[in-house]
């Protein structure tokens, strides 16, 4: 999640925008529930508070729906991207929100043989929102990972991008 947020913000930066990414600062164990925040703007970002009214929420682990309410504060008409094998209608989310789903963990298992959905979700985000370009997603991935791992992650992002574009 922390990685996904940083990659997302980096991609926005690579697209020439201002961006800011920060985690909620807890004990950082890989896989533990954690929220990360990203702001993207045309202007320099000065605000330091957490985000209480997001435009977009990415739910990287759909099993968290029971533990916390990831939609708390989401603006009316806001977008939710959920990592799940289910279809949007099956999630029973309020119709005032726009819901998209992506089976990111399944795709990650196929490509990495491990449940690390970060870059799959990044590709899906680029495809659904258009807020970041695929070129920038690739740049962010290449910056973050060594060549061999980067190649797999780009494959993961592209697969998700194509999937959401239908």
């Amino acid at each position, binding site marked *: 999640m922390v990685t996904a947020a940083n990659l997302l913000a980096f991609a926005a930066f690579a697209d020439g925008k201002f961006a*800011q990414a*920060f985690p909620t600062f807890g004990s950082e164990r890989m896989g533990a529930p954690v929220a990360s925040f990203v702001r993207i703007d045309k202007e320099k970002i000065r605000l330091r508070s957490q985000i209480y009214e997001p435009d977009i929420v990415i739910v990287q682990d759909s099993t968290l729906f029971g533990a916390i309410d990831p939609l708390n504060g989401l603006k009316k008409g806001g977008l939710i991207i959920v990592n799940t094998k289910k279809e949007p209608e099956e999630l029973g989310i309020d119709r005032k929100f726009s819901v998209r789903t992506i089976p990111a963990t399944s795709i990650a298992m196929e490509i990495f043989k491990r449940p690390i959905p970060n870059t799959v979700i990044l590709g899906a985000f680029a495809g659904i929102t258009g807020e970041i370009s695929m070129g920038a997603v690739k740049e962010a991935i290449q910056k973050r990972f060594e060549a061999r791992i980067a190649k797999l992650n780009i494959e993961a992002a592209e697969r998700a991008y194509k999937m959401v574009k239908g």
Partner: protein
Amino acid sequence: MQKFIEGSRAVAEFVGMCRPDVISAYPITPQTHIVEELAQIVADGELKSQFINVESEFAAASVVLGASATGARTYTATSSQGLLLMAEVLYNIAGMRLPIVLTCANRAVSAPISIWNDHQDSISVRDSGWIQLYAEDNQDAADMHIQAYKIAEDNDILLPVMVCMDGFILTHSFEPVDVPSPDEVDAFLPKFNPEIYLTAKNPLSLGLMAPPDSYMETRFALFKTLEESKEKIVKTAREFKKTFGRSSGELVEHYKIDGADTVLVCMGSIAGTVKVVVDELRQGGKKVGLLKIRCHRPFPEEEIKKALSKAKNIAIVEKAVSMGLGGVLATEIKAVLPDTNARAGVSNFIIGLGGRDITKKDIVNIVDKTVSGPVENEFVNINLSLLDE
């Protein structure tokens, strides 16, 4: 070159370009990423420096003290209990006039244990004789280190500098940072060239005992030099602006103070959020401004007096408390404001202790409360249900 990096990485890269000869640190959250990144830079051979691993912050401070006394450029970083464990050595460093640069990744102090941000750690050692600078964002924090060495190593100054950056809020945030080239930093920052240092060729003793007939003079000299360093801090900030084209202020920074009835005063990353609120309130016709304290020690008394001279209402918003008295910055500012009339409209707020999030709404509420009457030592957003009945 614009890079999108973590605050800690930015500080590590900038410190690396200052080419410290000796680095010693002990890991503590949220300082850890800074020294991990520096250790990596040294291990990768990008920086020729002695990175000395130690068993405690006390040892880390002692190592840089000894190294600095030999004329080496030195660096260390810590947080919270780590800074407090260093406290004894911090006083020695300042007393011996060693120009060490230290990053304090600001974190609350135990008990109860909190790894999250406030300013109680660095505030607690404000009287040690160190220059203390507070960073607003990651660019600012990184830039301050280059300036810190230039200020510290001036042979007329020779004082240690503590760069304070909010733990997690800055250290763990990713945002764009303009990273200079090593050549640009070399051109700005001259080599450390002390007149007095330990060498076998010319044996000396440093850190001596001073009996009652001479101790006080050393403290007087330290006090005076801190005052004199203000000029050097301003000069360095101006040179930096001229060379690199950016500034985060000098001793203080004015933000829309002209014509402001209400002025907020704060230090560190909260200034970013306050600036956003000031902009929004100004758009709504409210005359609000911000005075950011960039340098807390030496205390910019004259600059504060001048900046606040026309304000009807003043809100001092801070992340530390002098237990048994109140807000530290508030107490200091009240002490330097000219007369009781000027002080009548001063309110002070304690906010964000132990990492409690600070929202725009919190700042708006602070402005409203300040306008409607002086408030003293208000702890913002206290949850009374957590207290015993």
